[in-house]
């Protein structure tokens, strides 16, 4: 919570760019208007290099302790993209910033460090990414399955779109072409 100072969206992006330079591959600040008064909501998208990931999270936690909403993921073919959806500045009136940090992992070595040491609440979503996307979270405090039942074979990851995807498990499903 923002007991300290509020951060401006430009300030957040600049702070990352100054510290990590070329490791921040892309940054975008998006503003969306709503209602009659056209007040704006701010969404920041950052694309970062995998090598700087843990330092970026450390920097973020020191900047202001964020709320981690969830980690979502995409199978992009050659890489697996993880997007960490954070929120900053909550507790005031329309001050909140959505900060989405995206990192791509090569499929040959889909490994990333855990952030549970900084944000213990990340455990549920990290466990989900492990079982759904086949990403290895290094140093995760609890690596059991979370949502998947025990009878789903190992090496099948429901969110993947390659040969490790769930296609083999489709049986007698109406409308699904094999």
């Amino acid at each position, binding site marked *: 919570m923002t007991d300290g100072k509020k951060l401006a969206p430009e300030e957040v992006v600049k702070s990352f760019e100054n510290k990590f330079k070329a490791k921040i591959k892309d940054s975008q600040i998006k503003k969306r*208007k709503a209602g*009659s*008064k056209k*007040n704006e909501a701010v969404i920041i998208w950052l694309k970062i290099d995998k090598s700087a990931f843990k330092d970026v999270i450390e920097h973020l936690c020191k900047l202001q302790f964020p*709320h981690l909403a969830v980690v979502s993921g995409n199978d992009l073919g050659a890489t697996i993209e993880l997007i960490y959806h954070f929120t900053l500045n909550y*507790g005031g009136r329309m001050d909140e910033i959505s900060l989405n940090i995206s990192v791509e992992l090569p499929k040959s070595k889909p490994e990333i460090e855990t952030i549970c040491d900084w944000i*213990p609440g990340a455990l549920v979503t990290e466990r989900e990414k492990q079982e759904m996307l086949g990403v290895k979270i290094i140093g995760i405090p609890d690596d059991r399955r979370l949502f998947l039942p025990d009878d789903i074979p190992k090496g099948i990851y*429901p969110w993947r779109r390659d040969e490790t995807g769930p296609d083999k498990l489709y049986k007698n499903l109406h409308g699904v072409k094999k």
Partner: protein
Amino acid sequence: MKQKTTTKTTYHIPVGPIHPALKEPVFFEFEIDGERIVDVDVKLGHVHRGIEWASRKRNPVQILYLAERVCGICSYCHPAAFALAVEDVADIEIPERAEYLRVIQGELERICSHTLWAGVAAHEIGFDSVLFLTWQIREKALDLTEYLTGNRVTKAITMIGGVRRDITKDMLPTIQKGLQYLKDNFEKLRHVFLDDKTFKMRSQGCGILTKDDALKLCAVGPTTRASGVKKDVRVDISYFAYGDLDVSHITPDVLTGEVNGDVYDRIIVRLLEVKQSVDLIEQCLDKMPSGDIVAEPKIAKLLNQLKKVNGEGIGRHEAPRGEVIHYVKMDGNDAPFTWKIRAPTYNNILPWIPMLKGEQIADIPIVAASTDPCMSCTNRVGIVKDTKSYELTKEELHRLSVEKTRRLML
């Protein structure tokens, strides 16, 4: 399931996947020392239906109907968050009137959900008469929902770029009558839940979640606000018409001047939010501008527009249980490339652990129910003690909870 070594003094009891304290299936394994809970383990996934997978072959408008079926109680907030995400990707501007109509639906759902929860909470500690009283009041909110949308539960009111049904002038008297009924009965509810001695004895100092834990474990909604964290999407960002309205964070200190983060505080937050929701609906009816209710009424044209969109977006809405966030990635096809749903209970799983540690077996139903989990409910509890094992049926566990209330009343 992790097998922990049982020492001589502790034993394990499983609660779930089906249990009366939880409205949908979830599995707890408690490590118990006498009556006290030493450790908790949670297993999820009993109702994971692969809805996100099912969306891969559907277009955004079809997905709205799928999103509506994520949860029976939050049948407005999931399609709303999905629509927000798609509108974010496609840069669709929503007509002002639709923004207000969306707030009305969202707040009506909150009233239904919070009063549903209050009734269940009363039942958990053995006050079935209060359950019926609360649900009688809730019935009026459901009638109002049916009047506005045509249905009590699955409302099918959201459309990408707006809503599907307008509120006309001749509907206003009925709505105002319904809201007046809710306001008149609010005081009755407040008195029963917050002034009653037995309610206080069962809920004060029970199931505590500290502010520090709430922040670290990323709790959301009334669960985190009851611990003093000011986090409410409706206040924190401008979406729908919330930016135009007078809305503020509700934490228990508004009423009592202090924050304890116990079950009692979670009751306070939810009850006050019912009042806040009625107030927000009234503000909307008052300020609502005239105009269109949907950006693009022709569905085929809308779908054609969405087919050309490339990009990603998020939609966030404050559901009754907390923030719901949807992530959508579109890649120029009929169906979105990715759709990720994050319901509030997902983030309120880990906070259960500090809440339940140190409590008694008889407190499990009320503490577990106090976060208003959106998963499901328990039938029986099996107790494995040494080599002998026996089961507690749902009636017996409920009886333990009722007996504790009776003991305290003596």
